[in-house]
């Protein structure tokens, strides 16, 4: 599914990486635990998280993960957006809970990595 369509499904605001919205993504991993996100090996899913700190961006950078949706009305800081832009990431802000966001993505056909 195109990232622009994912943003629509989640009623999300794209705060960084608008030039990548025509790219496709079909896998999702959701967690607030950064060590979980570091166990994904050679999988590169979109990340759905309610943890909105610099460490979220750093963790994604280390895991070569470059699409992050922040749920629960979390807003990344300017500093986070700056680092994300350096790494060519896509960041989205979504007001929904983690459960609702994941439910909608599942319904739209996105898949888990395991």
């Amino acid at each position: 599914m195109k990232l622009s369509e994912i943003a629509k499904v989640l009623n999300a605001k794209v705060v960084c990486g608008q030039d990548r919205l025509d790219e496709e993504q079909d896998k999702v991993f959701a967690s607030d635990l950064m060590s979980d996100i570091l166990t994904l090996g050679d999988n590169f899913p979109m990340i759905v998280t309610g943890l909105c700190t610099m460490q979220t961006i750093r963790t994604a950078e280390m895991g070569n993960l470059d699409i992050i949706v922040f749920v629960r009305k979390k807003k990344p800081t300017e500093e986070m957006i700056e680092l994300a832009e350096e790494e060519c990431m896509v960041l989205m802000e979504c007001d929904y809970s983690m459960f609702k966001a994941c439910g909608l993505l599942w319904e739209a056909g996105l898949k888990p990595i395991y």
Partner: protein
Amino acid sequence: MHLEYTVVEGDFVNAGSASSSIKKTLKQLSVNPSIVKRVVVALYEAEVNAIAHAYGGVVTADIDAGKILIRVIDKGPGIPDIDWAMQEGHSTASPEVRNMGFGAGMGLPNIKKNVDRLNVQSTVGVGTTVEMEVNLS
């Protein structure tokens, strides 16, 4: 090539900057991306450990054609029981560290999974040295 970085206790804003710099260096050296990922995931976990659990320390990396050797040397307080700390789910992390998305007791096991050789030496009251080696080819 020898690289060296200082890590500061509790400095979560800059946690990962050593890992980020080493990642960029390995990419410039055209190391296989899967190997780069293993190196930086292990290093990042160790770097966060030094910031979250220790009084800061130093990260060194020595890179040659065949391997990278990384040492994360902290200034204490040391790990009383390394075997206990190596098990998944075992953690002494503070609530602050848990709020940063760490402290689930997956750090050392995650490091072990990603490196070819791991050696953890610790003396209570002195400090811990985590030595990690990854083959680059």
